């Protein structure tokens, strides 16, 4: 096998885009209970179900952590709901790509099979997103800062460092979390991007940690059809509480619409079984072992 020349670089310079558009809400919110979700992946049915559940749970403000598109059908429907219901939204890698007309989703996969299905998903989403929604996606902030009581929250898509960094439960060490919080001057960093929810607080300070809210666009590779989002609140003592909540929605209808749109059977199978059939190679050992494939 020959050596490749320096001019043939496979590195994608877009992968290193900084999270440089910060929406600073630290002076303007008195909320004590908020909802956070990410990864809609065009699943407008789950989006409505999650927003209704968040209202019933008493969330005063709802935050969307990015990635409106991908995987599911009819991209415009989810974006219209976000805009109509005044959800505080930020940009994920997918939104950056669709908004700026890039060639791929910048999901950060390294495996050819993962990238094959990601490209099918992206091409469909890009082709079916209206220009005025692309414009909206392009201008979204890339991170959000707010205070909940005396606690400093930083919302990012993959991580505060990079939009497509994967923060998995079993490969994100506690010493690293402490370093990240110190570097970012935050008490709770809230992210999505991996699609599987988890949270970890520091043993030395239970009011500090990372919360990955999961994704509402597809199940969490756990054999359940439901999807996950998070509530964060302040309790009577002023301590920070976070709860991961599971929400059911009309999966039969979503599966039928995905088939009608000609989306891959592998995607539909995930919606109907709760097990991931694609994007598997990016999973760490424990998360991979917990799935069916």
């Amino acid at each position: 096998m020959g050596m490749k020349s320096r001019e043939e670089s496979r590195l994608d310079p877009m992968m290193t885009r900084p999270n440089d558009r910060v929406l600073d809400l630290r002076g303007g919110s008195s909320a004590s209970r908020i909802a956070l979700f990410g990864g809609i992946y065009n699943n407008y049915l789950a989006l409505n179900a999650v927003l209704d559940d968040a209202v019933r749970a008493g969330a005063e403000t709802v935050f969307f952590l990015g990635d409106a598109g991908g995987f599911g059908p009819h991209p415009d429907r989810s974006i219209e709901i976000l805009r109509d219901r005044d959800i505080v939204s930020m940009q994920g890698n997918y939104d950056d790509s669709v908004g700026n007309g890039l060639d791929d989703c910048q999901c950060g996969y390294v495996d050819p099979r993962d990238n094959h299905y990601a490209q099918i998903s992206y091409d469909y989403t890009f082709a079916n997103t209206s220009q005025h929604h692309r414009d909206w996606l392009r201008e979204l902030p890339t991170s959000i800062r707010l205070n909940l009581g005396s606690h400093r929250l930083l919302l990012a898509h993959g991580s505060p460092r990079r939009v497509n960094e994967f923060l998995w439960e079993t490969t994100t060490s506690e010493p690293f979390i402490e370093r990240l919080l110190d570097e970012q001057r935050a008490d709770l960093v809230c992210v999505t991007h991996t699609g599987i929810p988890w949270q970890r607080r520091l043993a030395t300070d239970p009011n500090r940690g990372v919360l990955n809210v999961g994704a509402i666009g597809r199940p969490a590779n756990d054999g359940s059809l439901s999807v996950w989002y998070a509530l964060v609140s302040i309790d009577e003592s002023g301590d920070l509480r976070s709860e991961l909540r599971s929400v059911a929605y009309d999966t039969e209808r979503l599966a039928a619409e995905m088939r009608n749109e000609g989306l891959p059977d592998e995607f539909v199978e995930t919606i109907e079984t709760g097990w991931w059939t694609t994007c598997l190679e990016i999973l760490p050992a424990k998360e991979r072992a917990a799935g069916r494939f």
Partner: protein
Amino acid sequence: MSRKATGGSPTEPAKPRPVSSHKHRGPALDFIGLDVLWLQITGTVCNIACRHCFITCGPKNFNHPFMDRDQVLTTLEAAKDSGVKEYYFTGGEPFMHPDLLFFIERTLEQGPLSILTNALLIDTITAGRLFELSQASEYSLDIRVSLDGTTAEENDPIRGKGTFQEILVGAANLLRAGLNPVFTVTTVHAQYEGGDGRTLFMEELRQRGFPRPRVKFIPPFHLGREAQRSGEYEESFRLSPGDLFPGEEEVLQCGSCRTVTANGVYPCPILIEEDGARMAGSLEASFGSIELNHPACATCHVEGFSCRT
């Protein structure tokens, strides 16, 4: 120990440290903090001598000897203080070290761990113990098994006679114990390049009893014994100032990793036998920007490659 990368005084930034002693001037790469730590547990000592090894590991190469308990534990403590995200054990062959299981248990208390092995020493008892250690930790334990083909005819000329079957036995022991290994394949055979080659390799593994195969492909690095097999890097391969993308330190592993051997600290696991690559005697002293003036740096830049699992 400070959690911040040290790079000199605010008024006078430290000069980037070249990764080789060659006089060529390469591009500078910022250090964003220690995310990934490699421990060369058994140094350059290995139970086989692969023809494509990018160092010259083998049974008689003691250039980097085994790390002792004190070195490993001191390094792990410094890594914890520095906020390391994930750990890697490599060699040589890590399973030659008599204290390896102790090191694994200790590391999994503070972060996820990948071990790079040829699996020749992984019997059923060892595999079972590895599974127990994995189950006891909140973090992932990944075992990466090197294999260079889907037949003995492809693998054995590279890794040694009879190794193909023995590697598969070790990998099967892991699988039966409950650990699905990641097969690490250096792309010395053209048919396994690209997406189709990967699909072919995975199908072959399914046929051989690995129903959910995990595979990582690695490009050849033209160093060590591989340089003797396929030729050294041409001088034109060296990167120059201006070749890197803005923010490439976020993508190239050496922007956020270090490798520790019994002899000191190096910028990455590829360069431990290269002249001038040793950076310091301690982790903390190795923090700071580097200058990518070795031709192997171009392989990671061109391939978009990371040694991470």
